Every structure is written in C-alpha cells, then in structure tokens.
C-alpha cells in the first residue's frame, strides 16, 4: 500500500515537473495582464484579441500551410527513398540508410547554416523555395525512419507475388507495397507536420524576410522576457497545446481500437 502511494506520488511529481510551465501558461492565458505572474482577474480577453488580430491569423495560416506542404513533399520523398534503399543491393543499402539518417543526429543549427550558405550561393537565399527545402531536409529522414521498419516487416514475397500475377512493377508498388507500409507513411507524415510546426532554427535561417511562422513570431515577440508585447500569444500557445493533446489522444485511442478488435477475433 505504501509502495503504491509512493509510486503514484513520484509519477505525479514527475508529470508536474514536466507540465508545470505549460499549465502556468494556460492559467495565465485567462487573464489579460501584459506580464506573466500578475493576475488581473479572469477573462477571455486574450482569446478574443487573438482571433481579432489579423497578423496572428495570417501567421497561423502561414505556419499550417508551410507544415502541410513540407510534410507532404517530405513524405513523398522519404517514402520513395525508403523503398529505394530497401530494394537496393545490400552493399549499397546499409551506407545509404546510414547517410539518410545523418540529419537526424546532426545539430539543427549546422543544418540551418549550411542551408543558408547553399541558398545564398545560388541566389535563392530567403525565398519560399529555401524555406520549403529547409523544412524538407528536416522532415525527410524521419519519414524514412518511420517507413523503413514497415518495409522490413512486410512479407518480401508479396511484391513478387503481385509481379507474378501480372502486375507491372509500378502497379505492384501502388497496389501491394504502398498499402502494406501505409501506416508507416502516415506516421511519417504526422511526424513531419509536428517537426515543421514547431521548428524555429531552420525557419529563422531560410524564411523570406517578410514571412513569419508562429515560432519566429513568438520568438521575436517575447525577446524581452516575460513582458510580451502581444499577450494574445499566451492564448495561442495554450490553444496549440490543447489541440496537440487532443490529436495525441485521438491517435492513441484509434491505435488501441484495432488491437482490441484483433484480440477479440482470436
């Protein structure tokens, strides 16, 4: 009994440690004071401000648009890459896969500076192209990483079976291989969206001068500590947090359901 209470206490403590700052932010999103730490009474003012602020809405739209585009392109590129690596000769597959994962372990700032250098060399620095490519560089390795295990789990004979039954290699790919690895592709896509949404460093180094995402905007807005020029951002941050939690819960619940179904079937 004591053990149980102790373990629960520790769990709560750890969770509190992780989430306290965010909770604080959520709490202070319901007061309209300019500084965090000063409670000016409960109000939804910040939320009203947030949705009335055309600039923030534009930035929100920018961020989502960028995330979707970058994630989509990365997913296509990463999936193709993973399939390519998987079906290469073993001699090439191993080094290829290792190289494809370097951006994952590479410090982001190094990636960002290299991108900046590369694009200024070809006079495309701070354009939409450099921004999108920058985000793709960020996301693609994670798509490869999430598609690869699905390919390895797949029965290698089913691609051959499709060819054997008369499918051309591309028909076999789309009718058999892609459906088999689809869950990996989807999780790669989701991962890309989250990576792109909260990226600051690469965005800051590659974005066009007059373009802002939430990260860069928030960073500039709160540069001078807690004394934010735009307190509405507290409401925005709280909303992002709540939306993320909701999405995560939904995904987990969905993942649990087929598993339960399978157990019931057996």
């Amino acid at each position: 009994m004591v053990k149980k209470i102790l373990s629960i206490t520790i769990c709560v403590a750890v969770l509190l440690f992780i989430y306290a700052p965010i909770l604080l932010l959520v709490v202070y999103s319901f007061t309209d004071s300019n500084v965090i730490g000063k409670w000016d009474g409960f109000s939804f003012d910040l939320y009203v401000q947030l949705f009335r602020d055309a600039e923030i809405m534009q930035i929100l739209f920018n961020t989502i648009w960028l995330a979707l585009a970058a994630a989509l392109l990365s997913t296509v590129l990463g999936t193709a890459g993973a399939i390519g690596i998987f079906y290469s000769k073993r001699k090439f597959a191993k080094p290829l896969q290792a190289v494809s994962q370097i951006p994952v372990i590479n410090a982001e700032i190094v990636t960002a500076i290299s991108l900046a250098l590369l694009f200024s060399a070809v006079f495309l620095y701070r354009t939409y192209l450099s921004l999108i490519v920058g985000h793709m560089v960020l996301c693609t390795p994670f798509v490869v990483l999430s598609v690869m295990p699905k390919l390895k789990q797949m029965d290698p004979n089913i691609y051959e079976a499709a060819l054997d039954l008369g499918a051309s290699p591309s028909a076999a790919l789309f009718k058999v291989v892609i459906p088999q690895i689809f869950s990996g592709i989807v999780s790669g896509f989701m991962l890309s969206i989250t990576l792109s949404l909260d990226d600051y460093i690469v965005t800051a180094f590659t974005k066009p001068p007059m373009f802002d995402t939430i990260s860069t905007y928030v960073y500039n807005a709160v540069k001078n500590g807690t004394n934010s020029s735009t307190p509405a951002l507290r409401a925005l941050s709280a909303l992002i947090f709540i939306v993320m939690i909701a999405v995560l819960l939904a995904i987990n619940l969905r993942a649990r359901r087929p598993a339960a179904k399978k157990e019931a079937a057996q």
Partner: protein
Amino acid sequence: MNERKMDEKIIQLVNVSKVFDETTAVENVSFYVRKGEFITFLGPSGCGKTTTLRMIAGFDIPTSGKILLNGKDITDLPPNKRPVNTVFQRYALFPHYNIYDNIAFGLKLKKVPVTYRNDKGETYTKWQKLTRREIDEKVKNALAVVDLEGFEKRSVSTLSGGQQQRVAIARAIVNEPEILLLDEPLGALDLKMRKEMQIELKEMHRKLGITFIYVTHDQEEALTMSDTIVVMKDGCIQQIGTPTDIYNEPANAFVADFIGDSNILNGTMVDALTVRFCNRNFRCVDDFERNEKVDVVVRPEDIEMVPPEQGMLVGRVVSVVFKGVHYEITAMVGRSEMIIQSTQSREIGELIGMNIAPDAIHIMKKELTCNRYDGYITKKNTVVFGDGEFDCDVTTLYPGSHLDEDGYLITAQGEKIDLTDADVAVEVGLTDIEISDNAEEGGARGHIVSLIYKGDHYQYIVRTEENEEDYVLDTEDLWNENDYVSVKIKPENIHMKLKQEIK
C-alpha cells in the same frame, strides 16, 4: 533419360548458372520439363532448387545460360510477362485484400482479345479487361477447386494456414497459367494437413492438366507426388528420373543417402558381376570394370535376417528401434554399420546373419578422390587401418592439443584423453601414398592388382592379403602387376576424424 520419349518440351533450361555476389547457387544446370508433367526439384536446403524455380518465375535472372518456354527464349522476360504463376512457401497473400480480391488480383490486370464486328461488317479485335461477371465466375470456380466455396468476403487473417495455402493456390490457378510453380507449398503445414494437401494437389494436377513444377526437401513428398524428380545438390543436378528410378537406381551415394534410408558401403569389383564389401564377395547384377572402386547401396528393407550360421554376413545387434510398421535394427559387421528394416524384432547384443539378394545390391560408380578407411588408434598412438599400422599425428584429432610424456593427449582445454581403441575415419590422398620394394619399410603390404596409365602417371591398386583392403595411388614410377610391395604414408598425410567423442 535418353530412351524417354521426347514429348513437347514446355520449358527448357540450357546451361543455366546463377551467382549471387560470390556464391554460386546454381551451376550449369540443363534440363527440360514436358507439358503436363508433375516435376519436383528435390534437395537439401541451399542446393539451388528454389533459385532454379525463381529463375523460371522470372524473379531472378540467370547469370549465364538460357531459359526457353515453348522454344522461345524468356531468359530476360520480367515475371509479369510470363505465363507462369507461383505458389509461395509462406503463401504471400495480400493482407489488405479479402479473399475475393486476392484471387481476382491477376484477373483484374489481365487483358484478353475480344473480337467485334463494326457497321461495315469488318471484324476487329480489341484488348479488353475482363468484365466483372467473368471475374466473379472465375473466382468462384477457383474457390471451388480448392474447396473454399463461400469464402469470398473473409479476410486473410481469419484463415488457418491450410486455408491460406488453398487461397494461394486458387490465386495462382485462376490465371490459367501454363506452368504452376510451387515453392515448398506444404512446408508450413502440420503433418496430417500436409498428407491431405499432397493428395489434393495431385488430384488438382490431374484435373487441370497444367504443368506443375514443385520444390521440396521432403523426399517422401517428392516420391509420392511427382512424375519426374530432379535431385539437386550444391547447385548441380545429381539425377533426373522417375521416383522408381531414383529410389531403385540412385546415380550416386548422395542420391541414395538422400532418398530413403540406405546402407552405403565401400566396395570393389573383384570379378564379373561380383562385388566385395564387408570382407565378403557378393553376386550382383550391375557390371563394372574389374578392380574398380564402387559405392554399394543396400536398402534396409532388402536385408534378410537369418540365423548366424546361414548368413552371408554376421553382425551383432547394437540398437533396435520400433518404427510403427517395422523395426529398425542396427548391427555392426566388423567396423561397418548395417541398418535393417524388418517386421521381426531382435535383442541388442544378439548375433544375426544377414543375406542380401543379388538384385538388392545396387552398385554406383565412385568418384575416387581419396582412399577412405575405418581405423582405430592403438596404445602407441599409431593408427591401424587397411590391414596395416601407420605412424600418425593424433594431435590433429583435437585442435590445439599436445601429448604429454606418458603419451596421453592433452586438449587445448587441458583435458587428458586416452585415445586407445578410438574409432577414426581415415582419409589418404591418392598422391600421398608411396610404395616400396622393402617389405619392412611401410605400414602395410600387398600385391599390385591393377595398374592404369592415366596420361602422365600410373594409377595402382595395392591389395593386402589378409582382408583384401585396397590402396589406390597415383605415381609416375613404373611397377608391374603382381609386384609385392609395401605401402608408406607420411604421418602428416593421414587425415583422421574421430567417429565419436571420447568421454
């Protein structure tokens, strides 16, 4: 093979080899399959049988050689263009489709020529996809063939292994291929299911009338189902023949050993239709060159047990195992082991006589690469074999071992081993044997019974008097037949292997 009727060859492999990186999976294989035949590639795992099948299916392209289908070269044709369908070992059903869609997969991709007549009365053909109704009909028929009527809507994961295998077969035959390839299709099923499916497959082959190419490592499966068996080993074909041929007339010791149980003994032809093994001459029906070294195959069920005084061979029973239909009795005849299958049992330790009828003795040409003997180690750490005693290096039996002052072997782990009377298999190369006039010099003595000039050297056979053991050797020196010589072998040229671990 030669006397067999040359029917229509549906598929023919001409000098086909396949090399993966550095390893050769299939080496210079040539054979053909006749239309409508049930042919089986049989061999241990890694013998190249699956690679051969995959080359016929088009999944692997031969490194060299040609594959002809109905006389046309299809060596480089991709698998989707070949009128061949495969049943995979682990079924390879598409898990995201239901049974109907799995079976209809090939049909939906297929295009058939349809002839139309236009307004002017001219006929023209158009390549068209099958209609929904035609596909439905074909899927239904295919499911009926494999006894799975009404399974259309089921998902793959709800099916048992046997049912999945049936779906895999239906998915292949629904396309009406000219050849059905089956890669160990029953390997993943339990014994009872396997037996049932064997009969059903055979029945299917009869009904459909298409050519079946079957791959298995199970010799019993091959014998029961096939019209023709191709036995493979290390990427090479060992023998092609009907099941009866292969069982009764194995081409070499490997085939004899792989197909069924058999006693394989070293023998020598001593006279016309007379072979000597286990220190006794036997009449036989196969004729070979006199003094030729041969492999003798005797099937365990062909050895008749008789009282010891009436037996051609006498042995002591060392084990008796009840196998259901028969007893398997192992007897030692001298230092050779004989396996006997009989409905009668015997006691362990009992002396039994054994008779072998001339037509039960099958003799095969031996590819002679070295002399092989059964021997044992003496107290003095010499080895006795072939009626002689030779100095040898017993430390080669245990890597890293050495001898102590008392002549005991100390292993690399520091264990002390007494090798006295340890049974060993001895191999001596043909060029490692010297012969000399001086009878005192060598380890064994005998007369030269045969000499053959082989272009740049002579091959001699020296036969001892006591047990008529033979030494085959290659040398450039000239000797005469009937010379009495002694046999010398250097200790480092005597290759020994322990027959069992010494405790």
